[in-house]
Structures are given as structure tokens and as C-alpha cells.
């Protein structure tokens, strides 16, 4: 549900979203060393594949957004990675629109970058395993919730009549946030044991 289709949002919101995403991607690409492109691409591909996994919840199923984890592992590079993933989802599956791409990138990438800083603050140097796991859970859950809140915000800013739907979007994402928090704890728990250097920790 993080893919807003075209035609819903108002022009000022679309322009602001495109500007923020362009600036974010530009800044991230300038910081990105060419030698790191394969690494960023392969992590982006993992998240693309993992976000297609559907978890059963009652009669329906949900899929994860994974922007918290993407943020933890990629930092600012999450901006172009998410841009590539969303462009591919639009072209391969028809999820989300083209003009609205900027807003969709913004909604997922800003929480990702925030989660990166949050994780670094909570986990510290990785010496305390409990803190690492807490950081992972918080980043995983908050990544989803912040995205849902941003989706709700851009909907409401586009028209008061979307307010009811916007509230529904946030509520619908609470179970996703819980699953994603548990999922992130497992992923980061494993990585901190097997390959701590990936998280920037000393082995």
C-alpha cells in the first residue's frame, strides 16, 4: 500500500515529492563510490525479492516494505536503491504510477534514512547484543509506521476528503509494522553474528 497510483495527489504535493526525491538521490549518488555500486545493487535486489514474500495474516496476506532494514544496511544509498526498486515495480508489475514516483520514493526513503540514524544511535558499536536487537526492531517497525504516516499526510495534503482513507492507511499498517519489527530483529540478529562488518561493527 505504499504505492500511491497516479491521479490521486495534487500538483503541489507531486512537485514537492519529486523535488525531495531528486535532491535525496542526487546527494546519495554523489556520496556513493562507483566501486560500491554492485554492493548497493545486490542489497537492493535482496530487498526487492524479500518484499515480494507474502505473510499470511488471518484470511488475507501482507507483504513487507523493508525500508527500515534497507536504511540500516545502506544509509543514504537507500534513496537511489528505493528509486530503482519502485521504478522496476511500476514497469514489471504495474504497481504505482509514473508521475507519482517522486512522492512514493520520498515516502519510503526518508523513513529509511531516519531509521539508519536511529539504529546507529541505539545499537552503538554493536558490543551490546540486546541494544542491537532493540535497534533493529525499532527501525523495522518505525520504518513502516513512518511510511504509512507519510502516505496519510500526502493524501490529506492533496484534499481534505482523503482524510478518512488516510486514517485507514495508518491503521492497516500497524500489523505490518509488528511483523516487520520481528522480521528485522531476526535478520539483524543473524547478521550481527555472521557478518558484523556489514553493520559497521567490529568482528
Amino acid at each position, binding site marked *: 500500500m505504499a504505492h500511491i497510483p497516479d491521479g490521486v495527489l495534487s500538483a503541489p504535493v507531486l512537485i514537492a515529492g519529486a523535488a525531495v526525491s531528486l535532491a535525496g538521490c542526487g546527494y546519495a549518488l554523489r556520496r556513493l563510490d*562507483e566501486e560500491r555500486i554492485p554492493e548497493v545493487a*545486490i542489497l*537492493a535486489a535482496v530487498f526487492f525479492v524479500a518484499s515480494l514474500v507474502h505473510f499470511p495474516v488471518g484470511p488475507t496476506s501482507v507483504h513487507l516494505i523493508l525500508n527500515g532494514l534497507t536504511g540500516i544496511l545502506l544509509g543514504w544509498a537507500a534513496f537511489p536503491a528505493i528509486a530503482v526498486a519502485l521504478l522496476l515495480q*511500476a514497469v514489471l508489475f*504495474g504497481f504505482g*504510477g509514473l508521475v507519482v514516483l517522486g512522492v512514493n520514493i520520498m515516502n519510503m526513503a526518508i523513513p529509511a534514512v531516519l531509521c539508519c540514524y536511529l539504529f546507529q544511535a541505539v545499537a552503538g558499536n554493536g558490543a551490546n547484543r540486546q541494544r542491537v536487537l532493540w535497534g533493529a526492531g525499532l527501525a523495522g517497525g518505525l520504518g513502516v509506521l513512518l511510511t504509512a504516516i507519510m502516505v496519510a499526510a500526502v493524501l490529506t495534503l492533496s484534499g481534505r*476528503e482523503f482524510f478518512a482513507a488516510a486514517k485507514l492507511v495508518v491503521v492497516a499498517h500497524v500489523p505490518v509494522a509488528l511483523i516487520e519489527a*520481528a522480521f528485522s*530483529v531476526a535478520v539483524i540478529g543473524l547478521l550481527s553474528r555472521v557478518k558484523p562488518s556489514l553493520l559497521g561493527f567490529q568482528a
Partner: protein
Amino acid sequence: MSLAGEQTGAVNECGCDGAVALAGSRSGDDRRNFVQSVDPGIRLLVCAVFCLVVVSLNSLAALSLALGIAALAVAAARQSLGTALRRMAALDGFMLMVLAMLPFSTPGEPLFSVAGLPASREGALLGTMILLKANVVVLMILALLSSMEPALLGRAMNRLRLPNKFVLLFLFTLRYIDVLGREYRRLRVAMKARGFRMRCDLHTWRSVGYLVGMLLVRSIERSERIVAAMRCRGFNGTFPALTENAPLSWRDGAFAGASVGVCLGLALVGIQ
């Protein structure tokens, strides 16, 4: 060969055609139609401009016309009706929820009422327009962009002077999605063989978390090998093949000219 056994029908099918397209197995398809013979860069540009115009339309007549044009484009690109309908349905599942609430939350002249709640004509009109715009864009993406091999899209972006690093990131990601999709399926089969089933509990989330964590570890090691191999071949930040573009032909010019005409026409009809 879907990416995951648990996916819902629509995503499952999409995952399929995505995987096939990524594997590049389309090269055997030599029935190139007119849309496919147009330069990828021009197609990307035309698609973006068309979508921009469509989003700014505000009359039902113009939007219906745009829907017709998009449908024609899908037919011209020889995309199957099934794919088109599936994509429209995938979109509308989420949109219907949002749109269904619009008539009741938009103030205006009452049209009908459900359980005592009045629905306004303005809300219904707004909902219909959004539905039309969203579907026109999805169809046009299907016609102009999905009809090319995704790797060509990278070339198109290169032609339109998008940053080189972004294009490279796009191409590499595309490649690895295919590789990792296979690896993911292999690991899932191993879990299934040990009796793992997707449920709604902590065990499921943790197990799939470990699976993805393992995928990350393996793939990061793979990326280290890739960088080493690329350095060995003198990679200096560009691919020579990426910068070699065929010169534009009369088809490209004709297609671009006709598209500009269509966009102008739509804008004249539909933007007040």
C-alpha cells in the same frame, strides 16, 4: 517458477512474467512490432510526458479519450489483454478502498445515500476521474515501457542523460533480482522439505528473517567477488555498450511527432 509459493494470484503471475523478462529469454522473439522498433529513450520520454498530461486533465471526456489512446497503444505493442486486465485489477484493489470513501467524505450535492450516509455527486466524479487517470497511466506504462526488455530501459535512461551511477545501479539491481530470486526459491524449497509452512506467528517471521539474513550474507560475498572481477576487466565507471546508441530513425521521429500531437490534443480538450 514464481518467486514465492505463498503469493496471491496477481503477484504470483507478475513475479513470473517479471522473472522471464529479466532472464532475457525474450531474445528469441523476433516479432518486433512498431512500438518495439521505436528508440527506447523516445518511448520513455513520450510515456513520461503523456502521463504528466493525463494527470493534469480534469474533464471526463478527455480522460475517456486518453483511456482509449492508452488501450490502442497496448494493442499496438501487442501486450496481452490478460496482462492488461490483471494490472488494472492489481491497482484497483487498493484504490477501490480509498475511492469508495470519497463520495461520502466530499461535501456537495447528494447523489444517493447508503445506510443514511449521503454520497455527493462531486465525490463520485472525483473518484471516477482518479480511477481513470490511474488506469490510463498503468496501461501506458504497460504499452511503452513494459514492452521493452528491462535492460533496455537502462539504456533509455542513459540516453536521457540520467546520472551514470543511477543507470548502473538500475542495471546491476535488475541482474541480481533474477539471481537472488532463484536463490530465494532454492532456500524456500529447502525449508519446505523440512516441513516449514507459512503461518501467522513469530516462528514464521523469524525463520523467513533468517532466510533473508542468509541471503544477504551470501550476496554480499558475491558482490565482493563481482567487484574484484570487474576491476580485473578494467571497469572505469561506464559500460562501453551503454553509450553506443543507434542513431534516431524516421520511425522515432514519426512516433515522437504523433505523440506530441496526441498530448497537445488531450491538453486542449481536457485542461480548463
